[in-house]
Each structure stands twice: as structure tokens, then as C-alpha cells.
């Protein structure tokens, strides 16, 4: 059938296809909020290439060791230059206008140059080789810190927290104690490793390594724990935000829609009572039985039956004919239930706003995807001119599809009717011939 967003002469295509899921994302490289430890560069790279995020991080660490720290500078540069998922520009764009930040970064850089000079003077070559990347990295971090949004600063705070612990006013005694213990362990470890005593020969590598590792754990352990805890908390907050969005779109579909209907039918008391009752039933079953309104229960129902149910419900509630045509059929899963809910919302929208006497609802199940087209020959609208507070299409249909990895396109022009195209890729595990 080709691209549903077939361009038209009058340029009224409104493409909002958002493929939010899938093994690989073909869009430009973006740093990701989800799964990020520091800047989200590894998470973004993992998403772009389809590799596991842990594998990408390990590759980063290995590259850091092999390149003697150059990778750190590369990472910070990417943090500065790659925009965060959902943001328009990179941090670097803002940093260029931040004169003080640039000054601090240059100052820090020159300080490190001094350190490097000293280090070379004393002949510690390995420190000198580390200094360049560290200098670039630290200067970059300063710029990120000064110009990043709040949530990104939290990530940097995590990265530099051990240093902050040394200078911060609180819990200094704890930090000092930890450093003392670590110092003792470290000295002991190095002593064991360097010691030439014969009775210890067998134990050298093992004991020494254990002591050095223990020193590192004592210093950095609490920090690691905190990072892990922060990550869990952040993830929970995101889940809550998503749940809230889902809930808002459901309340919009059911309660707000019914209230709008009641306002339009205010002259017909019997119809108002009927609507209110139906809404009450629906709301109760959602609140107390956990059955979400606007969703069609997966399980014993098939996709085509769900489409017919939309037709019946919308015709009964709004008194406008819905001509539903389905080709093929398959069992319902969560993705297809979301598709049906979006189709229902688009149909109700067409019935309410188009003024057309009949709305066409065409659904086709294909092996790789399921698509639904909702078309009316009503008054149409200019997709560019829809005010932001009209939640119907924007939230319920587009976002609902995007959350599940689907795609929604709205095509309309004043006086030419409206067509909403929805498509949802089928779960790979459930692919089967569309015919029963």
C-alpha cells in the first residue's frame, strides 16, 4: 500500500510517525535518559547500534585503558556535542555563550598543564600521558556542568561525588576515617606486593591484590551504592510519569469525552442520564475491577471482533454510522489492544468533529503489521493549526501508538475530510499467517 503518509500537492501531510521501540533506532545519535550512568552516551550508542548497553560500556572501559585515558576525553566531547534524546540542541551550543564557564574551563586546563609540567619534570611519564585527556575531560565537564539541564547535573554530581565528599562540610569524619583505612590497606597491599620475603612468596599476588581492591572498595564503595540507588529511584520516577500519562489519556478518553457529550446533549435529559450511567459503570469497573476503559480486553477476543465492538459502541453512543471493514484477523495482544484504543479514539473524534454522516473504519491484518484507517468526509481541519490544548489526537492517538512502537499519521485539509492512519508492527513471536 506504500507509505501511509503519501505526500499531497497541498502539503497537508502531518507525519508524526514515532518508532519508539525496536532493536535498532535509525534516527540520529542521541544520548538517552533511560539507562544512563553518566551522560547517556553509551546508552545512546547501544540504542543506535542495537548492541547491549553493558557491552558498549565495557568497550568504553577497555578503550579507555588501551588509549591511556583518551577515551575519557572522547566521552566528554560526545556528552557536549550529542544532543540529549528529546532536546533540540547539544550542550555545546549553549556552552559557547557561557563566557564564565569557558573561562573556568580554560583556567582548569592551564592548571592541569602545570601539573603535567611538574609530572614530566619528575619523570613520571605515565601521569604525563594521562594529563592531556584528563585536562580536556575536566574542562568539558565544567562546561557540561554549567550549561546542562538540572537532571544532567545530577548525573555529573554522581560522577564527581568522591571528590565532593573530600571538600563537603558534612560527614567529613566518616570520609577521613575511610581514607585512613584505605591508606593503611593500600600501603599494606603494596608492601605485600613489593615485599621479597620468602615465606610470603606464594601469597604475593593474591594478598596484595585483595588488599589494593579492598582499599578501592572502602573509598569508592558508598559512592557505587549511591549510584545504584539513584538509578533505581530515577527509573521508578520515570515509570510513574509514564503511568500518569497513560492514566491521563484514559481519563480523557472516557470521562472527559462523556462530559463533552453531556454538554452537547444537554437538551435531552434521558440521553444525559444514559450517558452518565454508562460512564459510571465504566469508571467503577476501572477503579474497582482494574478493567481499563477504552481498552479492549485481550484474551478471548480477536482483533476483528475488537473493531466490530468499536463500531457498535460508537454508533450506539453517538448515533453516527460507522462502516467497519476488516481484512484478516489475529488474536489480540497488548500492542493490538493499544492500537484498537487509538482507533476508537480516532473514530470518536471523527464522529464528534467532522460532521460527516458516516465514518469509514478499515482495518487490515498483515503478517508483519496491523493497520487501521479512519476516514471521514467531514469538514476537515488544518493539522498545523490545532491548538496545543486539544488533547484528543495529540495525546491519546499519537502518544499511545508511539509508546507501543506504532505509528500514527493524520491527513486532513479544511473541507476535504480527515484520514487517520495507524499502524502497529506485530510482535515477532506471534507472527503467523493472517488468515485463520
Amino acid at each position, binding site marked *: *500500500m506504500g507509505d501511509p503518509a503519501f505526500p499531497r500537492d497541498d502539503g497537508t501531510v502531518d507525519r508524526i510517525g514515532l518508532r519508539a521501540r525496536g532493536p535498532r533506532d535509525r534516527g540520529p545519535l542521541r544520548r538517552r535518559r533511560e539507562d544512563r550512568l553518566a551522560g547517556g552516551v553509551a546508552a545512546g550508542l547501544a540504542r543506535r547500534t542495537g548492541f547491549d548497553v553493558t557491552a558498549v560500556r565495557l568497550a568504553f572501559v577497555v578503550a579507555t585503558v588501551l588509549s591511556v585515558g583518551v577515551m575519557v576525553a572522547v566521552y566528554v566531547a560526545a556528552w557536549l556535542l550529542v544532543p540529549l534524546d528529546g532536546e533540540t540542541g547539544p550542550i555545546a551550543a549553549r556552552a559557547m555563550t557561557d563566557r564564565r564557564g569557558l573561562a573556568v574551563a580554560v583556567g582548569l586546563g592551564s592548571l592541569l598543564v602545570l601539573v603535567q609540567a611538574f609530572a614530566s619534570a619528575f619523570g613520571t611519564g605515565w601521569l604525563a600521558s594521562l594529563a592531556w585527556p584528563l585536562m580536556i575531560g575536566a574542562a568539558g565537564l565544567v562546561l557540561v556542568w554549567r550549561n546542562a539541564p538540572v537532571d544532567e547535573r545530577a548525573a555529573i554530581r554522581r560522577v564527581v561525588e568522591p571528590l565532593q565528599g573530600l571538600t563537603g562540610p558534612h560527614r567529613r569524619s566518616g570520609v577521613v576515617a575511610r581514607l585512613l583505612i584505605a591508606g593503611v590497606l593500600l600501603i599494606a597491599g603494596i608492601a605485600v606486593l613489593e615485599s621479597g620475603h620468602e615465606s610470603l612468596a606464594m601469597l604475593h599476588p593474591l594478598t596484595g591484590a585483595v588488599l589494593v581492591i579492598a582499599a578501592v572498595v572502602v573509598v569508592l564503595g558508598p559512592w557505587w551504592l549511591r549510584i545504584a540507588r539513584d538509578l533505581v529511584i530515577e527509573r521508578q520516577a520515570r515509570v510513574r510519569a509514564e503511568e500518569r500519562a497513560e492514566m491521563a489519556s484514559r481519563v480523557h478518553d472516557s470521562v472527559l469525552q462523556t462530559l463533552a457529550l453531556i454538554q452537547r446533549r444537554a437538551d435531552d435529559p434521558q440521553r444525559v442520564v444514559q450517558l452518565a450511567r454508562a460512564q459510571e459503570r465504566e469508571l467503577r469497573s476501572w477503579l474497582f475491577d482494574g478493567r481499563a476503559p477504552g481498552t479492549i480486553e485481550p484474551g478471548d477476543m480477536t482483533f476483528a471482533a475488537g473493531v466490530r465492538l468499536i463500531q457498535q459502541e460508537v454508533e450506539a453512543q453517538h448515533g453516527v454510522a460507522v462502516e467497519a471493514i476488516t481484512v*484478516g484477523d489475529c488474536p489480540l495482544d497488548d500492542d493490538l489492544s493499544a492500537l484498537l484504543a487509538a482507533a476508537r479514539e480516532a473514530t470518536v473524534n471523527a464522529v464528534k468533529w467532522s460532521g460527516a454522516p458516516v465514518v*469509514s473504519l*478499515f482495518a487490515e491484518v498483515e*503478517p508483519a503489521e496491523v493497520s487501521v484507517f479512519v476516514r471521514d468526509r467531514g469538514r476537515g481541519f488544518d493539522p498545523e493549526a490545532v491548538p496545543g490544548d486539544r488533547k484528543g489526537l495529540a495525546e491519546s492517538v499519537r502518544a499511545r501508538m508511539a509508546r507501543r512502537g506504532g505509528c500514527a499519521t493524520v491527513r486532513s485539509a479544511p473541507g476535504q475530510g480527515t484520514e487517520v492512519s495507524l499502524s502497529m508492527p506485530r510482535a515477532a513471536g506471534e507472527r503467523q499467517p*493472517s*488468515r485463520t
Partner: protein
Amino acid sequence: MSTAGISTRDGSGATTARPRVFIVDDHGLFRSGVRSELGDRVDVVGEADDVEPAIALIAGCLPDVVLLDVHLPGGGGQLVASAIKAAHPQVRFLALSASDAPEDVIAVIRAGARGYVTKTISGAELVDAVHRVAAGDAVFSPRLAGFVLDAFAALPEPPRSRPSFDPELDQLTTREREVLRLIARGYTYREIARELYIAPKTVESHVSSVLRKLQLSTRHQLTRWAAERRLM
């Protein structure tokens, strides 16, 4: 309901002459309703309420188009169509049905009807459909397009299990599939032509070709639907 390609602006060159129309339906009220809706834009030459009188009367007056109800007391509408088609192939049939069951629709199409519309069609659309059938074109409702897409599902049946498999007749071309999908989505022929960058005439020839396949193919789904109406 909307029916594809029945806008008068489609530039189909539908005949301006008034086609002679015969109405077959067992409900008197429906016949008079259709008669008044068609008005003077067609010439209603007769009507019948069952299979036997319909066959006799149609053979007598040989109309251009017969509006044929799918359900008749003495049998299905396809009995009328097949009886007349055998002797008078120039008489064209347009099936009218309150039912949306594929076996009803497919049976009457396979008996020779050149199109199918539901009884909820508006008067203007019905007049248009009659003109279109009179001009030799096919009239596909979105519903019929859906049935055809279903019957000619994307997965071709393996030829070895179907000795009578004819790739020419038993499969739709990609273009035909596209046209049918747009009809099912409620597009008119004119809109389909614009969407696919082809001439309206080309859309019509695709639809006619699909109609031919629908009538002649031996695909299992089609023969099963037809058999359920005891046509074959």
C-alpha cells in the same frame, strides 16, 4: 454508506441517456422507496418480488440494469442472475443487499452481478452506481473490496495442492490490491486516481479486472463462500 467511484464528477463518461432499470425485491415498500429515490434520472421499466416472475419479466423487457436483492423467497438473487445471463448476456446486474455476509455477496457476484451496494446507500449514490453498471463498469462498495482482499489474501495458496490454480486468475496484482485497499478505506475512484497518480479510467479497468477474477477464480475462499449459498 459511501460507495467507491460514484461521484458524478469522476469523469467516467457515464451515459447521459437514462438507463432502463428493473427492480427485483420482495419488499414492496423497499421497491417503491428505490423507485422514488431513482426519480426521473433512470427509467424504471418494471419490478418483481420473486425469482420466477423476475426471470419471466426481465426476459420480456430486457432492461439495461437489474437491481437485484440478494435474498428472495424463492431462492437467492443469484438464481435470477444466472438464468438471465445464460440467455441475455447484455443485461447487467447490480446486487442490493441488507446483508453483509460474504457468502451472499460473493454468490451473486459470481452469478454475474457487476457490483454490490448495501441497501443503506443514498439515492444519489444509487443513481450513480446504476449509471456506472449500465456503462459496463464495476461497482465496488468498501465492504466488497474488503471481502475480495480477504479472499485473495497475501499468502498464495501452494499450487500443488490446487491443480486448478491459475496465477492469472487466482492472484491480485499489487496495483489491484492498492486500489481495493483505497476503496475499502472509503476513497472514490477519482480520489484513488489522484492518490496513485493514475487516470480514473485506469482505476476502472483495475476494478473490472478484479471483478473478472472474482467471478472466475477457483480460490478456495471464493468457492467456499459461493458453495455456502448453494450456487455451485
